[in-house]
């Protein structure tokens, strides 16, 4: 039964990918079922941008479902999983408000049930609750924005909005942009609307986490693309600037939180926030260039954003699947209890290493290519006249550079503490390799990371065509031959294939050189040097907490760490310590300064309004009468 369920989802994914690929290639089609629901009925349209996201969903669903076949408790939540996948596939095809909102809400509900898989655990219930609140706050924004636009244009169809966009009043357009962008940014996990993401992603089973982080939040990006570049036409510059600043903040803050996080899946969830930020840097620059009439640069920014969207889906799904294998093998998500897994799970370790290198943007893998493109898109802001906009771009460049360094540091920790050295617990010592379907899924995604890294010359023209269709210009941002990708004419070029070949050749140089100079080839295995101690144990290893400590100290204004140290001494003598308890937690500025005051305000407001609720039916009848009179007077 499980096999049948996931097998059919795999076929569904392949079909979705095929249909999406047809859309990317320029195929178009419309499906209309007006009788099914009111307000315009169901209407689906395939266009290049929708096709790209549909193909992405399809391609991510296949490995996730293969993985689920080998996942030990993959047989719970099959129905919710199917609804989740199907509704995600409808979102990028939806062509009117009704269709879009139905699919969007189904996707949110299905993922809510998947997050709430473990109904006994308080953590899981809280995660699902925060997720439900945030996602519905976002839905309320979307609903308001879409109704506003629909009423103003006089049609719920997106195609009509597109046609009428330039004639709309600026205040209506701005209001619609703010509402829709807030709704979509909440789903994408943009700072400061990210609070649900590090709670909900770890709580779901790993193949679902991979889909939530890999593709579901990308539908937020899809929405942001539609809002900022498509439905509302060419907006004022502050739209792009706002997106760029949000991207800069999300990328740096996301990676800073990830650095001090030692729950493996939460760490990955924080990195999703970071990568969404990087994608937004591309979208924001595209919007700003487009306002200034620099179409080729706008294309480049959009290509960078789309490329990073696809790349992030590949490596983040890979990392979540790897983390799932580790969590299943050790029974914990706490990195401090792991270690030494590279010897017990060599396949998972190798795949996780590729994913780590890719997300840290190390050449020649895929993360490097899209960050390179993003850098170039940001960098060419010297073609803009406005100094204010230049400074916003400068902020983007600085934050992208900082993010790269910090992400590298974070994945040294994530891979090093989890997989290297000695196991830190019995569970880690007794870990076992993942089952064959799980390995197959991870290997496929690792291969995708390598292929997307080595083949930008083949992939970029495809994104170029999609971006050109969105911006309605001719594809002209990039060129080059099979080996070298040229950007903005002769301005810059990239060849990851050449890098890979030269790196491989250079790898042989030290091998050959050692042989040539007649170096000793003897190797002796011995224990790790330890200042004369007798035996090495895992307690002597560096911990994840210690590893992250330099960062905690550098960025203490952001983390605001508190320290608590309890030492219990032996009753006889203070020279014998019985127990030491040390805690060094960080505090979230968003919880303390944004959500806590907002919730307090909400409670205070509710209490104030609560005075109206006396419980007496007569009083309620009086309210109705007063309200009726007021309405008659006002109307």
């Amino acid at each position, binding site marked *: 039964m499980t096999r049948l369920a996931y097998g059919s989802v795999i076929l569904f994914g392949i079909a979705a990918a095929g249909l999406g690929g047809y859309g990317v290639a320029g195929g178009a089609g419309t499906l209309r079922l007006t009788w099914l629901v009111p307000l315009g009925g169901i209407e689906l349209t395939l266009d290049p941008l929708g096709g790209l996201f549909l193909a992405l969903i399809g391609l991510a669903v296949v490995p996730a479902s293969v993985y689920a076949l080998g996942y030990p408790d993959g047989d719970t939540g099959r129905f919710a999983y199917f609804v989740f996948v199907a509704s995600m596939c409808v979102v990028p095809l939806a062509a009117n408000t009704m269709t879009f909102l139905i699919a969007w809400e189904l996707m949110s509900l299905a993922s809510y049930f998947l997050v709430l898989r473990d109904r006994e655990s308080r953590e899981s219930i809280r995660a699902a609750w925060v997720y439900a609140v945030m996602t519905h706050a976002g839905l309320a924004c979307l609903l308001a924005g879409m109704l506003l636009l629909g009423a103003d244009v006089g049609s719920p169809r997106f195609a009509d909005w597109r046609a009428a966009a330039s004639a709309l009043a600026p205040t209506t357009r701005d209001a619609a942009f703010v509402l829709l962008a807030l709704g979509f940014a909440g789903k994408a996990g943009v700072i400061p609307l990210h609070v649900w993401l590090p709670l909900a992603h770890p709580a779901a089973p790993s193949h679902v986490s991979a889909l939530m982080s890999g593709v579901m939040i990308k539908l937020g990006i899809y929405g942001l693309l539609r809002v900022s570049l498509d439905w509302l036409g060419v907006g004022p510059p502050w739209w792009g600037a706002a997106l760029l600043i949000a991207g800069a903040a999300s990328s740096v803050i996301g990676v800073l939180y990830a650095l001090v996080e030692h729950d493996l899946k939460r760490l990955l969830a924080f990195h999703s926030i970071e990568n969404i930020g990087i994608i937004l840097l591309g979208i924001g620059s595209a919007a700003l260039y487009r306002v200034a009439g620099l179409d080729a640069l706008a294309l480049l920014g959009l290509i960078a954003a789309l490329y990073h969207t696809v790349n992030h889906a590949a490596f983040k799904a890979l990392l979540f699947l790897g983390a799932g294998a580790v969590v299943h093998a050790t029974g914990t998500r706490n990195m401090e209890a792991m270690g030494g897994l590279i010897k017990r799970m060599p396949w998972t370790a190798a795949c996780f290493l590729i994913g780590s290198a890719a997300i840290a943007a190390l050449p020649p893998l895929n993360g490097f290519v899209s960050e390179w493109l993003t*850098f170039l898109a940001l960098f060419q802001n010297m073609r803009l006249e406005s100094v204010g906009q230049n400074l916003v771009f400068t902020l983007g460049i600085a934050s992208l*550079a900082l993010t790269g360094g910090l992400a590298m540091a974070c994945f040294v920790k994530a891979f*090093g503490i989890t997989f290297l*050295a000695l196991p830190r617990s019995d569970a880690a010592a007794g870990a076992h390799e993942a089952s064959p379907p799980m390995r197959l899924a991870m290997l496929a995604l690792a291969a995708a990371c390598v292929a997307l890294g080595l083949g930008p010359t083949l992939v970029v023209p495809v994104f170029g065509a999609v971006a050109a269709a969105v911006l309605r210009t001719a594809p002209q941002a990039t060129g080059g031959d099979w080996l070298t990708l040229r950007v903005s004419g002769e301005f810059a070029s*990239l060849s990851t294939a050449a890098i890979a070949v030269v790196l491989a050749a250079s790898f042989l140089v030290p091998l050959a050189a050692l042989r040539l100079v007649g170096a*000793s080839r003897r*190797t002796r295995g011995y224990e790790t040097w330890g200042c004369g101690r007798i035996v090495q144990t895992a307690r002597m*290893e560096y911990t994840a907490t210690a590893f992250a400590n330099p960062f905690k100290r550098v960025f203490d204004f952001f983390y605001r760490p508190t320290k608590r140290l309890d030492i219990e001494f032996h009753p006889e003598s203070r020279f014998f310590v019985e127990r030491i308890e040390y805690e060094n937690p960080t505090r979230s500025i968003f919880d303390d300064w944004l959500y806590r005051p907002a919730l307090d305000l909400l409670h205070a407001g509710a209490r104030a309004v609560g005075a109206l609720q006396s419980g007496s039916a007569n009083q309620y009848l009086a309210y109705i009468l007063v309200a009726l009179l007021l309405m008659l007077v006002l109307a």
Partner: protein
Amino acid sequence: MIAGIALAIVQVVIVGAGAPLLVGALRTLKARLVGRRGPSPWQPYADFRKLLAKEAVVSTTTSWVFRATPYILVATLLVTALVVPVVTVRPPLTFAGNIILLVYLFMLGTFFLALAGLDAGSAFGGMGSSREVAVAALAEPTVIVAVFALALRADTIDLGRIVERFGGEPWLAANPAHLLAFAAFFIVMLAETGRLPVDNPATHLELTMIHEAMVLEYSGRHLALVEWASAMKLFLFMTLLANLFVPWGLTEPSGPVAVLRGLLALTGKLALLTIAVAVLETAVAKLRLFRVPELLAGSFALAFLSLMAVFLVR
């Protein structure tokens, strides 16, 4: 094509063979400055010979990551040597990604070296790794931002063309953006190559060390490779600083004469820079470890200001 490959080989040989001499000369100079005779500048080559003759002792705790890292590290630096304009303004691999590639290649090396530091499971290695990535995470972005500030004013991100542009129009260098970028880059060079006041290359004292702690577990040929890589990194950073901010003497690779002239210019510039670094290292004390990130954050801020200055002063 043939000329390109020949130039690539020349460049790799200059960097690979010259790097130990640079380290040796720096040590000799430092010794002389404090009144010691010190070892000969050729001492690092003798050290390599000794290390290569010894057997390698590898901890049984480690995995393949530990054994592969020295080779990966050397490979990344050899590729980097092809991206930096060393003796001509047309480095052979410049088409493959330029300054961004350069920085991320350094990061690739740091990534594996830091993993190897964790692999042996001793507290030393972990401590070194943690500190090294903390330094690298703040230093490497600074390189990108500082070089971008130069690139914006030269209107190209091609390192060779930046050198060419500033070599042709030296008055461009008299600009606040340029000076800020220089200050930022200089601090980063010291940090990235483990010099004073960030790290002390001459000590194995566990409380202060960064890089040396991370590679503590290496021995024999592995240690030789790691040390060679460190020397190449120092060489490349100093070359980059010298050629970007003192852009004279480099031309297009029109023939052996041009390459030779570039080599002579580079030798002169590196000699001056070596004296400067040696004097600096003799004059300053090592910073407390947790002051180091503040210094680096300061250099990142300088680079950021430099980038902003490009727009504000244009």
